[in-house]
């Protein structure tokens, strides 16, 4: 695989990210227009709550105990939640790595940070502290779900930076959420996807699926040349090069580490399922092609 092909593979995810980012911006813009009494453009004008699957998560308790959705949550977010959970069960948190527009914004800002700080980028926080901080999102998830269940109010929107960013024109946005948004955007220049890593409650829930997802990220120890390119490219700082099957709760299924994009040895690191052990012959052949190609 040459560099051009490699770049094309990256473009698929980039195109999906841009599509969903543009979609959310358009929905937000349309919602604004409709509140001004203007006709929406191209698509409808639902609120951002209606197209966020996390709304479905926080209304679960209310739905199963009383058959109702909590404040501001509509059926669409409940349906979206099930679709995203299905997608996650199969492929892991694809939503985080491919769809979530807030993740995309952080990732784009991260590109600036990477240019500024080079190798230091995404490595500012000491590993021990970083490991601990990554459990905060589970605490937030539990708090948000419990508090929402007892109040039936969409409390999370009061400090949700995603809602603040795409609804910045609205008086529904609280000062606290604007402050959190500013902090996250600035932090994105130093750390890749800080909100996703440390605070996102939806990311926490979807991350759990990494333990039992059907399509797993597998590393072939026999062919791995231990170049650690996968570790370096991983936006979530996962130590991929030491695992046989990567089931880290922070994986976002971005596919950047795979031999389709970064790993220099074919059939060494990829997402797969129902796959028997690759034949030695196939492995050797793939290895030869890549290594002799000298692209990495």
């Amino acid at each position, binding site marked *: 695989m040459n560099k051009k092909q490699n770049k094309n593979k990256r473009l698929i995810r980039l195109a999906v990210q841009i599509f969903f980012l543009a979609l959310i911006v358009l929905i937000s813009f349309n919602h604004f227009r409709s509140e001004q009494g203007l006709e929406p453009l191209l698509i409808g004008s639902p609120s951002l709550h209606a197209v966020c699957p996390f709304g479905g998560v926080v209304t679960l308790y209310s739905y199963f105990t009383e058959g109702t959705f909590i*404040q501001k949550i*509509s059926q669409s977010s409940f*349906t979206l939640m099930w679709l995203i959970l299905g997608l996650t069960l199969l492929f892991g948190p694809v939503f985080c790595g491919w769809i979530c527009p807030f993740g995309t914004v952080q990732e784009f800002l991260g590109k600036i940070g990477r240019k500024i700080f080079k190798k230091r980028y995404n490595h500012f926080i000491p590993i021990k502290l970083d490991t601990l901080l990554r459990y905060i999102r589970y605490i937030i998830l539990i708090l948000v779900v419990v508090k929402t269940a007892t109040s039936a109010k969409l409390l999370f929107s009061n400090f949700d930076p995603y809602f603040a960013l795409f609804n910045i024109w609205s008086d529904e946005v609280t000062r606290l959420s604007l402050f959190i948004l500013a902090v996250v955007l600035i932090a994105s220049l130093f750390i890749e996807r800080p909100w996703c890593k440390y605070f996102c409650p939806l990311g926490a829930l979807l991350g759990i699926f990494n333990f039992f997802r059907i399509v797993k990220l597998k590393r072939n120890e026999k062919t791995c040349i231990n170049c650690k390119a996968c570790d370096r490219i991983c936006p979530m700082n996962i130590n991929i090069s030491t695992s046989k099957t990567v089931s880290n709760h922070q994986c976002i299924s971005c596919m950047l580490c795979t031999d389709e994009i970064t790993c220099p040895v074919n059939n060494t690191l990829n997402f797969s399922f129902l796959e028997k052990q690759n034949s030695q012959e196939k492995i050797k052949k793939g290895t030869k092609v890549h290594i002799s190609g000298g692209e990495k």
Partner: protein
Amino acid sequence: MKIRSLHILLAIIVIVGGGILLATEFGFYKTIKEKTPGKITEGVYVISDIRGSHTLEEIERYYQLPASSVIEAFGLKVDTNPDTFKLKDLKEIFKPAEIEGEEYMIETDTVRVFTSLYSKNPYISDETFYLPESTVNYLVENNKLDEKEKEYWLGHTFKAEYLEGDNLVGSETSILSENTVKEVVEETEEFEITGATTIQELLDQGITEEKFEEISGLKVPEDKTRTAKDFFDEKEVEFKDIKDKFREILGI
């Protein structure tokens, strides 16, 4: 099987895109906000979260206040559809009342206060200090007020007036407040149902089309200038029996 970026793209299109299309087709993808109020405790919802866009059915669902009670207490038409009637629609039905130089509307906050009194769910209004007479009477008749509340609200009522005659309650005299019944009786003292009474005259006296249909089992004819007797004779319904039921309703 090896999974590539293209597979993920296809999975997103099929699962998310296809799922949304399918859900839309089967009515499981509605982006309209569900106007769910907040909770105080399990099953007890915040009265201040009642909004003008709430339907009577939603009020019943969240506040255990039967739609029929609102219809009766506020003197709405008995055929009011609880699924579609929104609280903000009240403004279109009742005239504003002038009390002590201030204009009072029967609107969402009136229902909030009524719901609070009916369900003993706390709510302090900073705009509703008077309630329609029929509403207070309904609460008293149904023992929903304690002595203090009774004392206050019986002294803070106003007579609800309809914007259009079409919205007149009157389908059941029981739904009118005591005073209103007296008024209807006074107004109808001169009225008598005879063989010359037209259907329109019956309707004008307060027999609603729904009550007409309920009693006679017949739909109100388009030509309401016909005499009731002729109409029932034609339909082979005993006019005398019907007449007595109408008289009973009108208190004649």
